[in-house]
């Protein structure tokens, strides 16, 4: 993280956030514990960790879909927040156009504003000629494009991404990664992404937060100082990938 970012007031501040669930026989399951870090304006932060480390749970706490059991999470209330989901989560009963317009419609935006925003997103995401189609008529990649377009249409200040490319084929995933990065760079949004793909995290993030498994605690925070656009075939890139993977993999091995 650069010096200027460190001095700026964080947009997201997580202080000792913990979340517990009740399992069978009243057994307490720790989803994530004592998560403490800040996200500065315009920063791209990735949370990586093995399956079950509570990274998606933490993202849902940030999105105010869940409340933490301990600690507190602060988000600048003036910031608009949006989210991209792993399986697109587009509404099957709405057309592509209406899915993209959903957030703006809920905000009570004017028809002219909605029309303009949807047209922009349709063009940017390459969804021309699909406006009248329903999600069932689209491929997985196209559905995810609709999900991304819906998230960007509300012009968010903070964008949360929950493993947005993991259900896609490699080519589509790479294209969409570039689209999201382009949107981050051009609009200077703040991004918090959860992924289990280390390469993806190193390609996109300013900082990578590595979580342990059961319970999900912060194991390391790795700054990614590679210049952008990142060369994903460079030695420096692989060095960072290997370093982060070593932090993550022992957790995998220890529990499999």
């Amino acid at each position, binding site marked *: 993280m650069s010096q200027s970012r460190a001095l700026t007031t964080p947009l997201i501040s997580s202080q000792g956030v913990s979340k517990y669930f009740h399992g069978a026989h009243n057994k307490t399951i720790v989803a994530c514990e004592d998560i403490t870090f800040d996200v500065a304006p315009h920063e791209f932060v990735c949370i990586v960790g093995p399956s079950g480390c509570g990274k998606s749970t933490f993202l849902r706490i940030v999105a105010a879909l869940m409340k933490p059991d301990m600690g507190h999470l602060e988000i600048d209330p003036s910031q608009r927040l949006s*989210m991209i989901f792993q399986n697109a*989560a587009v509404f099957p009963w709405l057309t592509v156009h209406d899915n993209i317009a959903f957030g703006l419609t*809920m905000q009570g935006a004017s028809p002219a504003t909605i029309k303009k925003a949807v047209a922009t997103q349709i063009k940017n995401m390459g969804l021309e000629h699909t406006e009248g189609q329903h999600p069932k008529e689209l491929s997985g990649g196209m559905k995810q494009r609709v999900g991304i377009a819906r998230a960007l249409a509300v012009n968010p200040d903070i964008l949360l991404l929950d493993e947005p490319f993991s259900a896609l084929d490699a080519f589509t995933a790479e294209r969409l990664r570039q689209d999201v990065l382009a949107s981050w760079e051009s609009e200077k949004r703040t991004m918090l992404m959860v992924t289990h793909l280390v390469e993806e995290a190193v390609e996109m993030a300013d900082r990578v937060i590595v979580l342990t498994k059961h319970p999900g605690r912060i194991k390391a925070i790795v700054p990614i100082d590679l210049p952008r656009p990142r060369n994903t075939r460079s030695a420096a890139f692989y060095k960072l990938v290997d370093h982060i993977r070593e932090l993550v993999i022992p957790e995998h091995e220890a529990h499999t």
Partner: protein
Amino acid sequence: MRYSTQLHTPRANHRRHALQYHVFSTVISLFLFAFTAIALLLIANVARLSATTLFGGFLISLTRVSVAYVISCVLAIAIALLITSNRSVEAFLLPIFDVLQSFPSFALFPFLVEALRDQPEVVIVGVLVVTMIWPILFTIIGGIKNRREDLEEAASIFGATGVKRLSAFTMPSLLPSIVTGSIVGWGEGWEFIIGAELLVNARFGIGSYLGVLGNSHQNSLLALGILILMFLLFVLNKAIWLPLLRQSTKYQSES
């Protein structure tokens, strides 16, 4: 040139086929209605019943079932949303409704007839509601339980709250369950209205006419009447429920 090119796009073809299907479906439905009307006229003539009275009887029964259906559907949606709103409420209410749904509706008849002596219409609709509500209620509860969690989260993230959530998310997401439960509930309603109309000695209604035919031992006419009733229900199913069911598949989420 451009226009003709657009006509041959897959989407244009799809729309044309959909339109052709709707036209075909409407023609078939109209034909079935016409056929049913002629059959009703014939049976009325042979049975020496007034055709208008017979049509009126069917319409009265249809109205009773429809009113009971609307009440059942609204109640079922409200109760399902209430039950699933909170785990404690669910743990308390669900077993109660589970027991209640197995209670035979006709067992309520003596109480309802006694309590509402001068209001046979209320008795009939009341018994129908008690019958029709259960399949709708439990199918909707199943629909809520199986609803994709990420869709709910997306609705929340994008600001669907309060009344807006009800119209923009809750109702569309539950439509497949509502339609499926309604088809079962509607069928049960017709099953029960015959008995209900007979038991309260209703002056009008398809059940009353079948009763008249049965009491006067006109068995072949009774059999024909039952066939016509089945045919009418088939027509209603074809004209209303099947198109709704087809439409509701659009609303179904892929897991």
